[in-house]
């Protein structure tokens, strides 16, 4: 049997912004199909730049990016990626249902299929009561739910969650964990960035530590603890980032 290509493969990924900032410097990373992968690092480490590169939101300076073996900028590759960004970026003119249905359209879903899937997503994320409410009128938690529902709307094989639980209450965080776990069990590859170390430890099979645009280490939480001779993931993180 031919092994399936990795969900994500980055080779020599380099991004230098117009102002001169080198955000990623020859970055290599492979995430297997079906993995639950965490990306940890301080602000400015390059996590969001990496995600933006995969999702075609920045111009890459150098390197190769492949999604399930396909060039990341091909239409087929884009169709397989779902992104929930760290910052809320919802269309202010659309209500919840419209946000989901138009997103489905952008990703090639028929109108009928998009409506049916939007109903499913609203049910899963408890958004049905807000179906006709425009994004600016939603609470912070509801906006976060809608961002996730939108990212999953087109049933992507690789879901990228950039700080999905930042600023949400414990109840919603637990709900989201449950849903993301279920999604992973169904075979979806998850790439998660988070500042909550306990979240990374509870959810991720493998964790990469990144700083200054470079990969410092990658392993399971246990493997990282052993490698850094640390008792907790927090100690690992602090040692890796040399802030102790």
């Amino acid at each position, binding site marked *: 049997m031919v092994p399936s290509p990795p969900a994500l493969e980055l080779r020599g990924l380099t991004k230098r*912004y*117009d102002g001169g900032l080198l955000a990623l410097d020859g970055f290599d990373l492979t995430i297997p199909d079906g993995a639950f992968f965490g990306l940890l690092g301080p602000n400015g480490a390059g996590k969001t730049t990496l995600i933006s590169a995969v*999702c*075609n*939101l*920045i*111009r890459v300076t150098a390197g190769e990016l492949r999604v399930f073996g396909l060039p990341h900028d091909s*239409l*087929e590759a*884009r*169709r397989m*990626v779902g*992104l929930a*960004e760290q*910052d809320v*970026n*919802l*269309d*202010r*003119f*659309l209500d919840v249902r*419209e946000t989901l249905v*138009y*997103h*489905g*359209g*952008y*990703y*090639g*879903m*028929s109108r009928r299929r998009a409506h049916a899937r939007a109903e499913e997503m609203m049910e899963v994320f408890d958004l049905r009561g807000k179906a006709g409410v425009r994004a600016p009128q939603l609470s912070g938690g509801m906006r976060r739910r809608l961002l996730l529902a*939108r990212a999953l709307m087109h049933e992507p094989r690789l879901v990228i969650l950039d700080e999905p639980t930042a600023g949400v209450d414990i109840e919603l965080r637990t709900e989201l964990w449950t849903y993301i776990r279920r999604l992973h069990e169904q075979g979806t590859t998850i790439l998660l960035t988070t500042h909550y170390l306990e979240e990374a430890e509870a959810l991720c099979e493998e964790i990469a530590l990144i700083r200054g645009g470079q990969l410092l280490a990658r392993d399971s939480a246990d493997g990282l603890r052993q490698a850094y001779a640390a008792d907790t993931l927090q100690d690992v993180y602090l040692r890796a980032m040399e802030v102790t």
Partner: protein
Amino acid sequence: MSELVARHRGLLALTARETHRVLKLWTQTILAPVISSLLFIVVFGLSLGGRIKQIEGVPYDQFIVPGLIAMAMAQAAYSNNASSTFQARFDRYIHDVLSAPMRTWEINLGLSLGGAVRALAIGLALGAVAVPITGVPVREPLALAAAVLALLLAFCALGVVVGIYAESFDHHMAVNNVAILPLAFLGGVFYSVDLLPSPWQEISHLNPIFYLVQAVRYGFLGTADVSYWLALGVTLACGAACAAWSAWLFATGKRLKP
């Protein structure tokens, strides 16, 4: 047909979204410009028309209608696309489109068509009211259709380009207030450029909107200050330049992607 639709569902969805925005805000996007243009027709055409009998054999109230419609449509196409594109960048919901499996020309076209829908709605509404009020004829409908297409090409693309470059709402408003509106007024909307003394007559021929007004006027009245083909050619050339600029921005990602 269904295969074609399936291949371009992203484009159709984005066009639907842009049209949805225009229709959702119809009092601002359609009604307001229709009313302000009608006021021009009533105030300048019907009141001043009593004093200025004819220009080049055409009653004054009929003479100004084509230019006013062209001006309203051009401003609508431009401002719609500039504000929609800028808003999408400013709120970053354009990321949802840029990361989607859509070709760059589909994103460009989808963002452009909202302005075309808005401009056509305004043009049709103004025509529906102005034709019975003033009795302005449509002598060359095919020439008018070609002129309107050239207008839409130029100002829809210009709106998207400015929406991509703008750093604030003031920027795209400034292009409208400082460039488009004055050039439209000086482009012979209210007068025949042939009546101007030298050098103003020659200077007016450097104004690209002058040619747009003449092309649309020829479509309505069958007469214009310059040859229809020259007027259409200049308008199409401006449109092609704006469309090429817009296509280059989307193809390279410049200004859209850091």
